[in-house]
């Protein structure tokens, strides 16, 4: 778990005092020690192997289908998985990215504000129970979000969306799409996803804001800053990397969310015209795979879905890796 890259540095005990016992004689030789150490290494390596296998198996199962794909995989919006395979991910990619970006744009400002509230504004007695309440949002199962969003909120949201469409419909993003009702659009899914990823971004931002050195804060106050100015000059710059990293983790969650999206988003008929409108229906990678899951036969047509799953895996892998790199950089910088 050391944050430095060089293995030379790992051999010297860290100043934190966590590993003065590394290389202790007690660990060598005895049978029990060797078995136990072996078991822990095995478990660790198993995790690595599983992640690698996910990539390998998905790739291996996707390739046969990709080879006979009649359409361009990356640019086509078709999805025919009958006797002839013609599928492309352009539509899925757009729906996935559009909903996730909407979710992120809504959730990040809210999460930062709530994290500031919990760490800087809330009175001491309120801070912990309030954080617990926000965390409860993360405990709500996603199918309940789907139920609530798709059945309860969607109807209330529809008139708002129609209003936006009427006023701003000349912007392609907000154009009205025929046959798609208000509560089943990419934009609305983005809003529900925002609520779902809010707790994780809030929790991580809160952790970072809490670590702001008191000296920075007092320094700002000593120069006559108001509370807000103190936050702008001390807390936010200190927490910037952490907030970005937390947002990436939230983005990863939004990209892969399945059942809530599937329950809310209305599907499009085959050959529906392409539009950039956020007030359109569609399917994300995850919702497409899940909604057609009952038809999986294990044959070539399943390969098309596995190919879509592979793209989703690569997307979330990259997003999570970026989040991790940002955190590690920051650790190396502050420690």
């Amino acid at each position, binding site marked *: *778990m*050391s944050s430095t890259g060089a293995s030379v540095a*790992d*051999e010297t005990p860290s100043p934190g005092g966590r590993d003065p*016992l590394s290389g202790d004689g*007690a*660990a060598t030789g005895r049978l*029990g*020690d060797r078995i136990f*150490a072996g*078991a*822990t*290494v*095995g*478990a*660790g390596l198993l*995790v690595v192997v*599983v*992640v690698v296998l*996910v990539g390998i*198996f*998905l790739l291996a*199962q996707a390739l046969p289908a990709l080879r006979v794909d009649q359409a361009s995989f990356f640019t086509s919006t078709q999805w025919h998985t009958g006797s002839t395979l013609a599928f492309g991910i352009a539509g899925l990619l757009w729906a996935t990215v559009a909903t996730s970006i909407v979710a992120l744009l809504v959730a990040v*400002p*809210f999460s930062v504000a*709530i994290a*500031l*509230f919990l760490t800087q*504004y*809330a009175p001491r007695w309120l801070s912990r129970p309030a954080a617990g309440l926000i965390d*409860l*949002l993360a*405990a709500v*199962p*996603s*199918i*309940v979000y789907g*139920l*609530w969003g798709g059945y*309860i*909120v969607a109807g209330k949201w529809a008139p708002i969306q129609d209003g936006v469409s009427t006023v701003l419909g000349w912007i392609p993003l907000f154009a009205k799409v025929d046959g798609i009702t208000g509560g089943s659009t990419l934009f609305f899914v983005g809003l529900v996803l925002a609520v779902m990823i809010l707790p994780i971004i*809030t929790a991580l931002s809160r952790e970072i804001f809490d670590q702001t050195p008191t000296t920075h804060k007092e320094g700002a106050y000593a120069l006559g800053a*108001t*509370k*807000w100015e103190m936050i702008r000059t001390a807390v936010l710059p200190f927490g910037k990397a952490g907030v970005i990293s937390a947002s990436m*983790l939230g983005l990863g969650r939004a990209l*892969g969310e*399945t*059942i809530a999206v599937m*329950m809310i988003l209305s599907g499009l008929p085959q050959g529906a015209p392409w539009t950039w409108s956020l007030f359109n229906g569609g399917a994300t990678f*995850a919702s497409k*795979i*899940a909604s057609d899951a009952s038809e999986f036969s*294990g044959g070539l047509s*399943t390969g098309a879905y596995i190919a879509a799953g592979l793209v*989703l*895996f690569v997307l*979330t*892998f990259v997003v*999570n890796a970026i989040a991790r790199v940002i955190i590690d950089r920051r650790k190396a910088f502050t420690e």
Partner: protein
Amino acid sequence: MTTDIAAPEAPEAPRPTVSLDGRSGGRKAKNTLATVLVWAAFLLALVPLVWIMWTVLGRGFHVLLSATWWQKDQSGALPPGFDTNVRGMRHALVGTLLMSLLTTVIAVPIAILTAIYLVEYGRGRVARVVSFMVDILSGIPSIVAALFIFAAWVTTFGLKIIPACASLALAMLMIPVVTRSTEEMLKLVPNELREASYALGVPKWKTIVRIVLPTSFSGIVTGVLLGFSRVAGETAPLLLLAAYTPYLNENLFSGSMAALPTLINNQFLSINDPISGQRVWGAACTLILLVLVINLLGRLVGRLAKVKR
């Protein structure tokens, strides 16, 4: 006359501008605005939580009060519109608990051993790769985990899907949760305890099993409970790996098995039918209460442990 008296006092009026509290109106206004916005953001975030609880409890709680809801499954159910009986969700509750328990049995040993490796043994490049992969695993969408198990189990090895497959996929989601929380707990165990044990000639493995793990036990329990509450509410892997069935099945290794989320999914399309609607909201209410109770229990254990320390 009054103006004459007022006149000498006039120079006093501008005094506040030279007071030591010399913040300009604009800066004060910004500060107030920030305070208001931050409070508003928090209160607004509570709206979905309250709204969800209100909806689910309001529409579903009365279903839970009937004994048949807990005792019966959905066998004999007719298509929506023809049915007049809500019947029960025993099959779904049993399925959810069984699959989540098997998940826990698979995931927890691997997760705890991985955490021990990362804290007590892991050094250098291998440990960094393992830690990185735990992060990646925690970010893998549940549908991808399910697709992986499907691609391996069905397409590659040609085996039949059994409910235990869902547990395998869910275990992939639970491992990182438990690993991370166990890791945090192990790091909190003071090194003096380990050193004292070594000084008495106790082997390293025994020190870990008898000294380090018991000290961080409650923290590990918290992680396990939080992980359990996460997988119990998962739906996506079940859609691929545990097809819904209206009958009670207590065998994890054959047939299909219902779960609370798949019961909701199964009845959702006919939610406007009053009978189906009761099943949907009843199942949602049961699920949310199950998950929240386990989640809160986990946090309670964590908090009590902190008090003890």
